[in-house]
């Protein structure tokens, strides 16, 4: 393995980890606050990607500059969060907070199945590809290795900003503190006047926006196909479970671990590259069942 290949694998891994982290961040935030694992998160990711490609394609066809691809990503992500995430929480999840964990899982799974077909109905089964955002930023050369600036600089930068922003938001802002308080003890929070329903709705929309943003940011780098949502939900669950459910900083580290593991496997043992994330997850969970950064839950008797 010479330096060039090493660097390529490193860059691939970092770019991939950044994307997975953004999606996993939404997943783990929703779980941390609402105690629901949203299987439909994968669909929101896929819909974010589809929406971005459609919007960008439409706007660029009107003759606007390709730079507009970036704000359109944010627009699509917010659209996904508000138009799909909002009603999902308000009309459906709100009814099942008192149900058992398994039923909640089944409900989000049912939503996932529905949304998979919605994608197929709206966008068909042919792959989409639109790399205008990638071309706007051009390439950079590091030690003779040429790589796209979008993947090497922009994606990791966004991931870091989101990580720091989320930390700041949850610990320093009033809304963030309300969310943290509701997470700690819903009843106590309600008794001091926090509208827990509103907090849940808000959290879920934020989580959904993050899923959509992950898809939007991924759209210039991959071709968009049916089934990408299923892959992503399993992968981001692997990241979140390895870190410990609800652990935001941990998710960043495990995303990096899994992203690098996968990309180095692509160059060294291509056959097993798909398996690497799961191997890492299984190995970690064998030693630490609650995840790398999770603490064992106290049992109620």
């Amino acid at each position, binding site marked *: 393995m010479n330096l060039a290949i090493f660097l390529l694998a490193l860059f691939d891994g970092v770019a991939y980890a950044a994307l997975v982290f953004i999606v996993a961040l939404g997943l783990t935030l929703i779980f941390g606050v609402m105690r629901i694992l949203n299987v439909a998160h994968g669909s929101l990711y896929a819909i974010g990607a589809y929406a971005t490609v459609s919007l960008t394609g439409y706007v660029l066809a009107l003759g606007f500059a390709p730079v507009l691809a970036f704000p359109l990503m944010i627009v699509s992500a917010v659209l996904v969060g508000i138009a799909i995430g909002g009603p999902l929480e308000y009309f459906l999840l709100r009814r099942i907070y008192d149900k058992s*964990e*398994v039923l909640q899982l*089944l409900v989000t799974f049912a939503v996932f*199945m*529905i949304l998979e077909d919605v994608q197929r*109905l709206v966008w068909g089964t042919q792959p989409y590809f639109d790399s205008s955002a990638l071309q706007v930023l051009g390439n950079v050369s590091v030690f003779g290795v040429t790589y796209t600036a979008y993947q090497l600089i922009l994606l990791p930068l966004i991931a870091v900003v989101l990580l720091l922003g989320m930390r700041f938001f949850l610990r320093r802002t009033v809304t963030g503190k309300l969310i943290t308080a509701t997470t700690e003890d819903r009843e106590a929070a309600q008794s001091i006047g926090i509208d827990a329903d509103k907090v849940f709705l808000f959290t879920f929309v934020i989580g959904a926006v993050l899923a959509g943003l992950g898809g939007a940011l991924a759209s210039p780098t991959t071709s968009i196909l049916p089934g990408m949502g299923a892959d992503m939900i399993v992968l981001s669950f692997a990241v979140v479970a390895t870190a410990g459910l609800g652990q935001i900083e941990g998710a960043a580290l495990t995303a990096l671990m899994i992203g690098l593991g996968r990309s180095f496997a692509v160059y060294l043992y291509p056959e097993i590259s*798909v398996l690497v994330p799961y191997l890492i*997850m299984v190995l970690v969970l064998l030693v630490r069942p609650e995840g790398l950064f999770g603490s064992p839950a106290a049992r109620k008797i």
Partner: protein
Amino acid sequence: MSTRTDQPDTTAGKTSPEKGASPMKSALSLLWIIGIAAVVAVPFVAPSLKLLFTFAMAKGLGVLGVTVLLRAGQVSFGHALYFGIAAYAGAFLMTAMPSTDFLIVLLAGVAGATLASIFVGLFVVRYRGIFFGMLNLAFSMIFWSILEKFYHYTGGADGIRLERPTVFGSALNFNDFGMILYYVLVALMVGLGWYTMRWFNSPVGNLFQTIKTNETRLEYLGVSPKRALLSGYVLSAALCGVGGVMMGMAQGVVTPEYVWWVRSAEMVFIAVLGGAGSVQGAFLGALIYEAVRTYASVYAGDVWQMILGGFLLIIILFAPGGLIGILESLFKRKSDKKGGGK
């Protein structure tokens, strides 16, 4: 010691609901006997439905496996894994040793699924709820990508043929073999269904179901919940294996599709549709599902998953007992009307 302590629990749980509902129970069990008789008669009365029933029963056995886990309050989104492993085990055996006996293929498939489930089970029984469901999904996706990637051995997305095995030394034609498969499936459905119901009432089965109600109490009894869950997990995988290898023989080809997460979701769907935790519900659900799919998917192939998801939501939110729950409440109402003076 442990068996003695849970003995009273078993009897207490069994007698109380049966006392009040015995006329309803007998009416229902009569219905099941009629149902089985009808299934036995299908190849003669309505030969065109034979294949549909064959697939429904094979799938029903897989659903029964998922149903077993639901009894412990656990849901697996990856049980198609065992369905597929068994089918591939049968197919590999037939490729390696052509004209193997039908019974050996069946046993090889079940053995494959059972072995895999012990291996995976030792890991996943440490988890409950979300983790249990998602880890099973992860394992099934790992196996799926292995099947797709190592196409030299597995035939990739096209899968491999499962040649028709011999039956006790004689090679049969397509129709005769179909008949044999059909009646073996009926026997397996009745036999394994009965066995599973007996197992639910056995001490091990009771310990297993306690995981849903009160796992901590199990530990106080000195019983390892992991071991109890593992026993149920292996049973559920073996049932899925029986279904999978029978499905493989009925279709004559096995593809990675067998392991695809949509298949797992389908099994969970049917189990919930039939009635979460009901043995009869698993087969009833599978039959209705296959029938609707055969006729409706022609018109609604594009939105099939959407329909499934929609129904799943409706059942969970409005009819948590599933088809069996609806059926039982109908019978209850009738028997209440009859004995109105009570």
